[in-house]
């Protein structure tokens, strides 16, 4: 077990996989000489050379297409798209090609490609550079979408994604890169499609993913001091979605709040809420609530940006409301 940042965990995993399998290569803008906009690929060009760490022009559609084609021929590309906002330029490659080729070729070819890309706002990068578009990809059959919330999962899930024979969108978050955590040493291959109980609890379930889990855990800690036991479900994978873990948690707590970085309407929370309605209806003692981003293009101005993004205070408020809605007195489940 070694303590490291999320960034280091990604960097070491890329290094380990480049070492392990010579078919693995990295491709993207400024990932080589510049070592990545967020320094995830630091030192890798020097170590593995320009055939394994490929710098490209600013051409998301082009290099994503290159990666897909090479993946069809047996390579295992790890594409870095600088932020998820720029994936829009490559969305036809991702949605219409990477996601569909295996099915449309009768299963004869697969596309073992990983698209690493950070999402999220909060860095004053303004409306076009601060989005949470993961739900767009989570909507598409043929893609897998993983969104680890901590360094250990970042390592395990990136390893699993690189070794997966299907295209995986690997969601990172600008706000997580410096997050520290213990990471198990040695090879760790995670399982794509399983959620984790990030914190056990009995009174209310908070479902989140990626950076939201960090906030949810902080809030859960505060509630614990007030005698409220919050269970935090870390989705880890948005597609496939681990519906069982979500429903099992809600069957235990009878209350659920979804905390999501994306927008409310048609968002991740809507899917989770429907899942709970279908799988845990008889166990619900209060309406399922969602805490999501304000439905505006994210403002640049810092106070406005902060106000538009869902935060711990918003989550705390809605947890309190949900407890109140079911006459929570702290003595249930005891």
């Amino acid at each position, binding site marked *: 077990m070694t303590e490291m940042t999320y960034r280091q965990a990604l960097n070491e995993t890329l290094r380990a996989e480049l070492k392990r399998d010579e078919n693995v290569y990295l491709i993207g803008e400024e990932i080589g000489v510049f070592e990545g906009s967020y320094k995830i690929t630091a030192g890798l060009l020097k170590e593995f050379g320009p055939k394994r760490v490929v710098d490209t022009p600013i051409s998301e559609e082009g290099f994503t297409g290159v990666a897909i084609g090479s993946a069809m021929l047996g390579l295992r590309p790890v594409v870095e798209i600088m932020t998820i906002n720029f994936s829009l330029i490559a969305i036809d490659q991702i949605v219409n090609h990477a996601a569909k080729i295996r099915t449309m070729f009768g299963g004869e070819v697969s596309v073992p490609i990983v698209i690493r890309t950070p999402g999220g706002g909060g860095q004053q990068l303004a409306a076009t550079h601060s989005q949470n578009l993961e739900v767009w990809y989570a909507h598409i059959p043929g893609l897998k979408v993983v969104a680890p919330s901590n360094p250990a999962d970042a390592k395990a899930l990136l390893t699993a994604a690189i070794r997966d024979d299907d295209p995986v969108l690997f969601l990172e978050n600008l706000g997580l890169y410096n997050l520290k955590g213990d990471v198990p040493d040695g090879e760790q291959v995670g399982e794509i499609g399983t959620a984790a109980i990030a914190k056990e609890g009995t009174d209310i379930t908070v479902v989140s993913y990626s950076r939201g889990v960090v906030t949810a855990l902080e809030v859960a800690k505060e509630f614990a001091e007030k005698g409220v036991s919050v269970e935090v479900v870390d989705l880890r994978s948005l597609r496939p979605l681990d519906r069982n873990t979500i429903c099992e948690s809600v069957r235990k707590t*009878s209350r659920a709040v979804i905390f999501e970085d994306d927008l*409310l*309407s048609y968002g991740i929370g809507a899917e989770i*809420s429907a899942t709970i309605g279908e799988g845990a*209806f*008889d*166990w*619900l*003692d*209060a*309406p*399922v*609530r*969602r*805490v*999501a*981003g*304000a*439905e*505006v*293009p994210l*403002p640049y101005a810092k106070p*406005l940006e902060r*106000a*538009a*993004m*869902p*935060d711990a205070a*918003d*989550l705390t*408020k*809605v947890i309190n*409301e949900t407890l*109140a*809605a*079911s*006459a*929570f*007195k702290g003595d*249930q489940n005891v």
Partner: protein
Amino acid sequence: MSEVVMPRLSDTMEEGELAKWLKNEGDTITKGDILAEIETDKATMDLEAFESGVLEKHLVEAGTVVPIGTPVAMIGDGSAKSEAPKKESPKKASAKKDEPQTDDEPAAEEPSVEKSPAEKSPEAEDQPEAEDPLVEKSPEAASRNQPEANAKAEPSPEPASTESADDSSRPRMSPLARKIAKDHGLDPAAITGSGPQGRVVRADVEAAIADEPSQNQPSQNQPSQNSPSASASAVNVAAPLTGKDEVVAVNRIRKVAAKRLTESQAVPHFFLTSIVSMEKLLAFRVDVNESLESQGIKVSVNDLFVRAAAVTLRQHPEANSSWGDDALVRRGNVNVGIAVATDSGLLVPVIRNADQKDLAAISRETVALAAKARDGKLSPDEMSGGTFSVSNLGMFGIDQFTAMINPPEAGILAVGATNPVPMLRDGELVEVPKLKITLTVDHRVMDGAVAAGFLRDLVENLEKPLRLIL
């Protein structure tokens, strides 16, 4: 159109008095306006409008005490003035700080009338040519944190119900509560909800199970995991049931009545009985009904007693009072409750300001309230605020009985059956119709002599019935 509901303003608040309307029907309302003052068990607070529009209707009169979650007003666009509120699917944006559960139920037939919060905000996106949509819209929304606009934590719409909010046939109930109630064979309608808008939640069902151990008994195979302690107490407390016993589930009315009557036991009662000669009153009734025949009104004996009680209460404010912990409260209005037997139980609708209403008005109102009572359509409003009650078992041939006080009222009049009584008049034996009335008194409010004075004047008003129309 949206309902504004009585908000929960404190943790202990169960009901609030709509002390004063500050906005009248027809007034234009801007979000943030103070609609009314609400008096809770703790303080007087403002009822704020959470959306803009026109105040279509007051659903509750000033001075009325209603449970939290009860709709008190409708806000709309001003077009639906005459529409019955219950036809409208209730959407309440009246979220209060502590109580933001809002229903958002676009009417099925016209989904575009109400924009849900989520539907509203994209307008900002639809108008990219606007100078600066962010500065125009989001700062306000973000800083005020109003659910209507772009608040991050938007309230979840509750499952749409096509039924009106006050439809008691399907009480608001969380799925979990419904399941536990079903597993225990409890009638959901008999459980009082403590959640928003009276929603029954698990805690309420578990309390009900604990309260009614015998109810629990017959279904032996029920899963007990939800409430092991409740089941355990059920076994201990319940009288052993034999095969001949039958456990009958009761409705909400009976439960509420049971609670109120138990509270009534705490009131120190005493009883005074008088005999009323009905000779003049019955003749007076015939005269009155003749004159009202064209209006289709038939004044009952009970109406005469309600009116007589009201007139006498106005003469005796000390009887129109309640005990308030360490002070007496003289009630400004004379509101007389009438005990109405219905299939589902005893209900006591209230004739407000009965001292200011003539016999025809009292009769008309009583007929309407009794019909509503039998149909289960009485609003809490129509059953609250009484200052005195009249209960009549005369039609069942009961000669005399004592009624239980309906707190916080200080008195209730029990009216028996009219019987012919032989009497000597001018040396001749005549038959005079008489009946016995018994006044039950809260001794904390009135002593014997004071109550006797009230009853004496009541008898006099009944025996000199012209006073009832003065």
